[in-house]
């Protein structure tokens, strides 16, 4: 064991001479003493690892005699098996390559079998001609540090696991949202004899279920039903209302396809379902299409419940809103009035329905700089006479151009009668 030879206490009494002597004794602490009793383990090995010199501190840690170690054991013999593997695969090759290696965590095995974590650093001593002569190694007691590191590792593993879990949960949620969202919209639009149709749906945020909806389906041999609307609010609650709305309108259409009547049914359903608690309502345009195979014209009956007016793009290059004034939001009052309208679409005409995500897209710095009805009408005028697919392509390009300005979901539905004189083929 390492003990100081001096027994005198430097702070003994106020005798300066004693204190000076003690200090001098400290200064005379020999290099040998410093080596043997250093607060770290020292060890010199031949290049093959055979231990040539080892200090008392390390022998004390190991619980071994110098005779049992020097010339008899290799550095790796002091290590645990795992440490030995690490030494052979990492420590030794790196030391060879770099001539030194620092701060490597290893474990030594004491004579009593107890492991002791250490931090090992080694340098290779070279001879005059650069040939490696021996390896000098220091080992620092890392017991406290190791306990702390293991705690850190444990915490890191827990954090990584939590993160994995969170990512998996998030992916599952995204899948569920996507499935739910797709249940709110038709997969494809049915073919309508004598007509072309195109639809587009854009969510403002992939994390949020949209509240916009549209649908087109066959009612009977002669007629088709279409509707498009916007449920107030966003998220799961809005999606639930959207779902209710879509299937209510479908059922109502089968019962009575008169547009005002279908919206009245929806109004009653929504009002009854949501009048207590948080009111939920929507805007919607509902209509029927009746193509005439003889004339090629399509008669459209529609009604609006508080929805922005549809646009009619005519073959002659004009576009105008189809007024449906006074139609009330669907679901806020027990009884509500809906305004019906009827138009005829001839060859080259297209009916365009949209939600206010389009007209309320921000186009400037201020949140009151909105795209607006007039701009949309002007845009539609430029598209008048084109096929619904071409109109839709232009509109999706317009949505793209809004970039971040598109704050809300947008649903678009174009229903048109192709004409031989149209500007593009189908």
């Amino acid at each position, binding site marked *: 064991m390492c003990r100081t030879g001096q027994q005198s206490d430097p702070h003994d009494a106020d005798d300066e001479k004693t204190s000076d002597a003690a200090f001098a004794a400290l200064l005379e602490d020999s290099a040998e003493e410093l080596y043997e009793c250093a607060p770290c383990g020292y060890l010199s090995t031949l*290049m*093959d690892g055979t231990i040539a010199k080892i200090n008392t501190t390390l022998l004390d840690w190991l619980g071994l005699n110098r005779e049992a170690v020097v010339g008899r054991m290799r550095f790796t013999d002091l290590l645990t098996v*795992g440490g*030995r593997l*690490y030494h052979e695969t990492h420590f030794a*090759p790196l030391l060879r390559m770099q001539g030194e*290696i620092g701060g490597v965590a290893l474990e030594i095995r004491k004579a009593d079998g107890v492991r002791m974590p250490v931090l090992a650093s080694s340098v290779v001593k070279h001879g005059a001609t650069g040939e490696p002569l021996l390896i000098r190694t220091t080992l620092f007691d890392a017991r406290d540090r190791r306990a702390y590191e293991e705690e850190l590792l444990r915490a890191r593993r827990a954090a990584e696991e939590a993160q994995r879990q969170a990512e998996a949960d998030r992916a599952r949620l995204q899948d569920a949202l996507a499935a739910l969202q797709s249940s709110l919209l038709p997969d494809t639009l049915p073919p309508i004899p004598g007509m072309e149709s195109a639809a587009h749906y854009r969510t403002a945020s992939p994390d949020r279920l949209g509240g916009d909806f549209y649908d087109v389906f066959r009612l009977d041999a002669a007629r088709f039903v279409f509707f498009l609307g916007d449920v107030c609010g966003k998220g799961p609650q809005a999606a639930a209302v959207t779902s209710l709305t879509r299937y209510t309108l479908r059922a109502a259409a089968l019962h009575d396809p008169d547009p005002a009547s279908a919206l009245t049914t929806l109004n009653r359903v929504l009002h009854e379902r949501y009048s207590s608690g948080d009111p939920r309502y929507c805007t919607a345009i509902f209509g029927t299409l009746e193509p005439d195979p003889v004339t090629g014209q399509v008669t459209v009956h529609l009604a609006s419940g508080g929805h922005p007016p549809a646009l009619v793009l005519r073959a002659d290059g004009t576009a105008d809103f189809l007024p449906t004034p006074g139609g009330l939001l669907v679901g806020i009052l027990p009884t509500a009035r809906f305004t019906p309208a009827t138009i005829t679409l001839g060859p080259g005409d297209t009916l365009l329905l949209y939600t206010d995500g389009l007209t309320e897209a921000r186009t400037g710095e201020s949140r009151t700089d909105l795209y607006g009805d007039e701009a949309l009408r002007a845009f539609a005028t430029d598209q008048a006479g084109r096929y619904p697919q071409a109109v839709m392509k232009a509109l999706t390009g317009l949505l793209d151009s809004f970039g971040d300005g598109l704050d809300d979901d947008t649903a678009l539905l174009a229903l048109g009668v192709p004409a031989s004189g149209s500007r593009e083929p189908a």
Partner: protein
Amino acid sequence: MDVQRRNNVTVTGNPHGPTVVLAHGFGCDQNMWRLTVPALVKDYRVVLFDYVGSGRSDLSAFSETRYASLAGYAQDVVDVCDVLDLRGVVFVGHSVSAMIGVLAAQMAPERIGALVMVAPSPRYIDDEGYRGGFSAEDIEELLDSMELNYLGWSAAMAPVIMGNAERPELGEELANSFCATDPAMARVFARTTFLSDSRQDLNKVSVPTLVLDCTQDAIAPREVGAYVHQAIPGSTLLTLDATGHCPHMSAPEATNEAITGFLAGLR
């Protein structure tokens, strides 16, 4: 897929000479061969590479499934041979790479004409009638040692450092950076290496084979070297007077002499 970039392939030496492929083992990368390459460059074309997940390979190409078996690593060897259109090469594999070479020779016999197995072991864990030198617990201990030595390297950070070709100085700044790699990938390699059992593949070797073991090797002891030699028909066993598991680093002259002697015998 750019295999040369993915596996950080280096081609050096005599372009007209026969080709020698040097494959590093678990724990480091192609730098391990830097004392071997000078002995070969005059007469041989030398191909070096890093397995995916090691050294300066493209870490984004790593797949935990593919590299959970030695066949995944052997596929790296075959890919490298394919992209360079190498035929009949001498494959020099250190440690686990010796066994990877055995598998690669089975997968693409036309590519590999001879094997040099440096400190090989077909199975590290003791088994009935077989002494590999380790228990399953020992291997878990190694994995722990590795993990502790990666502390401070965040798993996310290491690949950035290693993979950033524009800033090689980042790699230099880190001490002990030669063999630094992503800890998660190193862990997969360690598991695959130390838990594999390729004893059944040894007798399928049909190319000239040199087995090199060391007088003192804690990882692949002499009896394992003898086992490998015995199992491979017609193989040559040479025991190098070297200590440790990396004779090409600790006794480069003897190792190089053994390899070049074998190569000369093939010509």
